[in-house]
């Protein structure tokens, strides 16, 4: 198997596979300026979102981790931050600057939006010149971080697409790679297996605490997630219970052991396989993985989830022949041959390996071609 990719070695030594000049709005009311710059300056990419005002406590901490993490992602060559006020814009820019990449902050108060857009555009011209002058290098495939999250799962996910990702993950970890996975609620019924796989006792306790906290939160609402888990799409695809869905879900990590348990937005320390506390909503989870340094995401689907991310390519794998037939513009790897045993698991794990290398070397995935750029922040509780 090929084990080199042609990627970008960033100032801090991390490997990126895309080369964005990212325009980061601090808050909802700065989205307009960020998008304006994206429209004017070729080679820039805005990541509009709905929050960044009056957040506080742990929710605010997670907000900063996510925004700084997005700008720090190795797929980003340079970043421009824009907020209504200087303080939070500067805080995010300073966090990103620690990676050594070029970053500038702007604020709209006392300037007005139009003047701010002009300043940002002038900065963006320099940033794009810088980004496009960077040269790619041959580096080890295993030096990148890959994240995992499935969606619109059905029984073909647990039978095939998630298992292919699992077999790939085992091989990638044997090659000293780094992998992130999460989806706390969608482990319900399989949490004992994840707990057993954690290498360290302290991580096992941390994982179970995070898992149980969410179960308690559900109970406090006086409900259970029956009705939303499994989703309507899952049930239409043959999944009957959350336990069945969760057991299919964890096929994505194969038989691998887990090196650490991270809370929302925590950066993994060291290589290996890391669990992160995340929502099971696709865009929220992928946004957190990207903020934690993942540069490629693997997304097995059954019924056909169409999610993408602005910063990292999201590779879709399905084994459902109907999804391949009706949703081909979203699918990067057709693994339906595993259902009728036409090909075996190792064959498809190798296909996926090659697909990721091809993607890392620059080929666009379907979600990028279709401009799917879901950047969605996780909120822990309402803003003040």
């Amino acid at each position, binding site marked *: 198997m090929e084990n080199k990719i042609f990627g970008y070695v960033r100032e801090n030594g991390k490997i990126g596979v895309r080369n964005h000049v990212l325009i980061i709005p601090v808050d909802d009311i700065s989205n307009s300026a960020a998008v304006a710059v994206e429209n004017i300056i070729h080679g820039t990419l805005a990541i509009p979102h709905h929050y960044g005002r009056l957040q506080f406590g742990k929710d605010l901490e997670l907000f900063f981790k996510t925004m700084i993490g997005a700008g720090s992602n190795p797929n980003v060559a340079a970043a421009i931050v824009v907020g209504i006020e200087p303080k939070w814009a500067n805080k995010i820019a300073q966090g990103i600057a620690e990676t050594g990449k070029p970053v500038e902050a702007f604020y709209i108060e006392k300037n007005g939006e139009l003047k701010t857009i002009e300043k940002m555009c002038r900065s963006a011209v320099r940033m794009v010149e810088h980004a496009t002058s960077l040269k790619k290098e041959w580096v080890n495939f295993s030096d990148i971080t890959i994240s995992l999250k499935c969606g619109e799962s059905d*029984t*073909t996910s*647990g039978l095939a697409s998630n298992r292919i990702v699992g077999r790939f993950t085992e091989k990638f970890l044997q090659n000293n790679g780094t992998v992130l996975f999460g989806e706390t609620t969608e482990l319900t019924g*399989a949490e004992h297996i994840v707990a057993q796989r954690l290498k360290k006792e302290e991580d096992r306790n941390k994982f179970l605490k995070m898992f149980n906290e969410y179960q308690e939160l559900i109970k406090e609402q006086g409900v259970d997630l029956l009705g939303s888990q499994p989703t309507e799409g899952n049930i239409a695809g*043959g999944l*009957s*219970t959350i336990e069945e869905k969760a*057991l*299919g879900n964890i096929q994505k990590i194969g038989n691998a052991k887990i090196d650490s348990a991270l809370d929302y937005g925590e950066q993994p320390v060291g290589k290996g396989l890391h669990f992160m506390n995340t929502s099971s909503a696709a865009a929220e989870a992928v946004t957190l993985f990207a903020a934690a340094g993942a540069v490629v995401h693997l997304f097995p689907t059954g019924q056909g989830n169409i999610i993408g991310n602005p910063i990292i390519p999201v590779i879709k794998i399905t084994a459902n022949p109907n999804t391949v037939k009706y949703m081909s513009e979203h699918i990067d790897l057709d693994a339906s041959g595993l*259902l009728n045993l036409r090909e075996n698991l190792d064959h498809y794990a190798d296909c996926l390996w090659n697909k990721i290398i091809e993607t890392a070397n620059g080929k666009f995935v379907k979600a990028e071609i279709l401009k799917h750029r879901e950047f969605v922040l996780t909120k822990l509780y309402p803003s003040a």
Partner: protein
Amino acid sequence: MAFYKFLVHKEGDSVGIATDDLQPHEKVKGKVLEGEEEYEINVLMEIPLGYKISLKDIEEGEEIIEYGEKIGKAIKPIKKGEMVHVHNIKSIIWGGNKDGE
């Protein structure tokens, strides 16, 4: 090898998954994912691709096993060859005090 029309995650599971649309009165063969174990079942009703087929007679209240783990329990008796889904099984963890209908 479209010879097999359903697959079973683990030996000892009570359900398999249809990998083709199954028709009533059809006799179909299935196979366990890892291993050599094969199955032959008389299909009792229409079971679309991706839906579960019962590999044995199951009593009301009995645990349903897939992946070698509990995925729920039967809320009515299920015959070998019948479809297994939300109409006849429910989660053990969530919805425990409800009828599961």
